[in-house]
């Protein structure tokens, strides 16, 4: 009897580890189950995110199913608030985020400022190139930056397929399009500046001409994407340039055919929503678990059904997010890394904005 009880006890003792172990892929490191039990004793992961929770609810719910006992506290913030909260709280030495989920620019900046914890994710071999920087910044989704237009106002044959065609459209129809075009204002929007600087890196002369053409067509300049896209749907604008693909496809789905997207075939910028574990994260094991789950086949499958594209080689992308078959090479990734720090450089900013302003005024 005593022996039987002891065996039973041993089995019960083993049970949690067994249940956890079932989920651990074969190529994960040996100590992974310890990390899971550490994460469970931490009990929660606090995420500061500029990726809105409504888009990734499926991912969060599934994570909680797999790891019962780890609560996901998700704070929807904009990228400035993410930065302010994290840096202030770290300076004060109080509880702060365990995981940051923001744009690759913001995260690269935080990594550069020495605020990140290094972690080698076991999912690394399955990811496409240019996704992880220094084991500190982890791009978890990819989405194109697109042109959106209202098909009732812009005929099919006028929809631009390249930056050159967009330039032609703006110059040849400048008077018809007056007040009907929108784009982000690089002077008032960090995203607008990042897109415009990347355009200029890709094709300085072409971008200058394009900005002149925007100026010539009386383009409306916005500081926020959502109201700009809403105005394309309503027909106040016919076309808007440089819109995050996830936002565009979410709104297009409920637009009754009033919003379509176009990817430009000469090159198309691609954004990465990027994760980071702060160096002082109190629940860093839970954060690592959440990161690995996001990268896992199952996690990326879930994300591929949201407006975001995947970063795994073995997950199929939504066709709306994939580049057209005729230009597979046109993808330009906003990979986390030193390149993403340039928009934060005061001199680079000031000199680019001066050029932009002159071009928009027609010079």
């Amino acid at each position, binding site marked *: 009897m005593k022996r039987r009880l002891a065996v039973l006890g041993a089995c019960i003792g083993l049970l949690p580890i067994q249940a956890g172990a079932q989920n651990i892929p074969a190529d994960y490191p040996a100590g992974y189950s310890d990390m899971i039990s550490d994460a469970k004793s931490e009990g929660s992961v606090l995420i500061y995110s*500029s*990726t*809105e*929770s*409504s888009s990734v*609810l499926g991912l969060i719910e599934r994570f909680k199913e797999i790891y019962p006992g780890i609560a996901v*506290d*998700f*704070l*929807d*913030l*904009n*990228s*400035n*608030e993410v*930065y*302010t*909260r994290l840096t*202030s*709280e770290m*300076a*004060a030495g*109080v*509880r702060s985020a365990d995981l940051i989920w923001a744009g690759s*620019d*913001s995260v690269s*900046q935080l990594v550069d400022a020495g605020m990140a914890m290094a972690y080698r994710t076991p999912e690394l071999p399955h990811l496409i190139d240019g996704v992880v920087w220094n084991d500190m910044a982890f791009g978890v989704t990819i989405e194109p930056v697109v042109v959106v237009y*209202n098909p*009732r*106002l812009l005929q099919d044959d006028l929809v631009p397929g390249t930056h050159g065609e967009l330039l032609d459209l703006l110059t040849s129809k400048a008077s018809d399009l007056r007040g009907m075009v*929108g784009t982000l204002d690089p*002077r*008032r*929007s*960090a995203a607008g500046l*990042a897109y415009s600087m990347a355009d200029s890196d890709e094709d300085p002369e072409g971008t200058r001409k394009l900005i002149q053409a925007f100026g010539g067509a009386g383009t*409306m*300049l*916005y*500081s*926020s994407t*959502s*109201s700009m*896209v*809403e*105005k394309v*749907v*309503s*027909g*106040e604008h016919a076309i808007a340039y440089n819109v995050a693909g996830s*936002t565009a496809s*979410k*709104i297009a789905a*409920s*637009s*009754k055919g*009033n*919003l379509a997207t176009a990817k430009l075939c000469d090159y198309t910028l691609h954004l990465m929503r990027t994760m980071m574990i702060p160096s002082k994260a109190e629940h860093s094991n839970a954060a690592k678990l959440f990161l690995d789950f996001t990268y896992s086949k199952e996690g990326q499958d879930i994300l591929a059904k949201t407006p975001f594209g995947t970063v795994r080689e073995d997950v199929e992308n939504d066709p709306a997010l994939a580049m057209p078959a005729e230009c597979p090479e046109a993808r330009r990734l906003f990979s986390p890394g030193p390149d993403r720090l340039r*928009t*934060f450089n005061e001199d680079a900013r000031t000199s680019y904005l001066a050029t932009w302003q002159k071009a928009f005024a027609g010079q």
Partner: protein
Amino acid sequence: MPRLARTLIVGSTILVILVPVALIVYQSLLTGPFYDAAAAFSLDAFGTVFGDPRFWQAIGNTLFICIGMVVIAVPLGSALAFLVVRTDMPGKAWLEPVILSPMFISAIVLAFGYVVVLGPVGFVTLFYRTYIGPPFWFLYSREMILVLCGLNHIPHVYLYVAAALRNLGSDVEEAARISGAGPIKVALGVSLPLVRPAVLYATIMVFFMGFEQFGFPLVLGDPQGISVITTYLYTLAQQFGVPKYQLLAVVAVFIMAATIPLVAIQRHFLKASERYVSVKGKGSAQRVIALGRPLRWASIAFVAIWLLVAVVFPVGGIVLRSFLSAWGVGISVIDSLTLANFRDIFLLPSLQRGVINSILIATLGAAVSVGVFALIGLATHRWKSPWARALDYSILLPRAMPGLIIGLAVFWVFLFIPVLTPLRQTLFAIWIAYTIVWIAYGIRLISGALLQISPDLEEAARVAGASPGRTGADITVPLMRSGLVAAWVLLYIAFVREYATAVYLFAPGTEVLGSLMITLSSTGSISQIAALSTINIVLVAVGVFAALRIGKIHA
């Protein structure tokens, strides 16, 4: 109230207000975040901001809007208060909650509503273009922003002036009527001059509110690049990728410095405020003034047109939008009707909590705040002391700062003052921030009501042997009850629609609706914002109707 108690109350209030304000002033003089050891003293940030032509442009636009708002809102709001409180205008009973309704919703939401209705392809614009002719307005213009801001602030003036008029005995008006004055003459010659403190408070308040206008300029000024001081500040925060706190602090300090002379002017106006005592020991029922047929119709027409433009258009626009998946050229409204926007919202636990927290903080929180304000009001009531004067100036400072900045300052205070740190992630932190931001409103309303109570009544109680505390509890407080209820309603509304202040303060579990709307507006779609706004409108409407009922029962 004993002198020591007064000094303690006033002193601690000033301390609570000045700590976050001082932090912002300190931050404006540094080269980096104040907690960064590498930050040095410098005036560079002032140089950067004052050297930016867009800053001065924003200042010009702000003043244009401030003055315009005063010119529109003060006369119309006072007229409306007179009509509702003192005349036999028809429909008064149901009119009050409707009059207040523009205050229910944050301006950013109303602005989205205007885009749906009065924008270049808005429903009313298209209707007008089809049946009447080219529209005479362009929604995205400075003038239109001014007009809409002005019409939107009529209720603020109304609340102040109406509260004062309610406390006014009608004997003087009757005397004027008996001597042959018409209703307009009574209003301009007797009633409104008697509530001049309230009108002046309202004027200065509306001017201040011009400085803090954010929603209308952000949404309506955005495509044309028309910026005011707050939207300049907002984009200043956005444009560097990482916020440069010293620049934000400079703009906040500038706004505060600009308000000091205004307070001086206000004090000058109110020096002899005892002259306005009008609730006297002699009881007299309030009697309303008969308007006569033509004036009745004119007043109804005036109210109807204002309500159409200031309430029906934007609220109708945003509520309609919340039930549509999309709208615009070639889309049938019937086809795109949907409940999906609301379903999406209620799938999010943070939004469910946001609704509950907003209700809690707006009902209980606002009630406690009114108690705090009443205590401060009583402490300074008829107290000629430098302390009272210092308080008068200090309470206006947090109001003068944009909500985003005072929210940031309170966030830092809770972060870096160790005693407060445990409270940081509770609703208490948000309540404190709201109370600090709205202290000027609350105290003005309460002291406006206090000033109208004649000292005879208090003196009578004292002569009869009552202690100062007892006099306050039995005489002063009951007499200012309508002022307290008005303050509670005002704060309820303010707390429910408050947004920027809590942006840095909410934590998982303490989300509030307004701040969630801000974060959604930067990334989400207008559909979600519209649905949230409709929920917000319903919440406030329910609360205001309840408050008005309570107010009536007690009166």
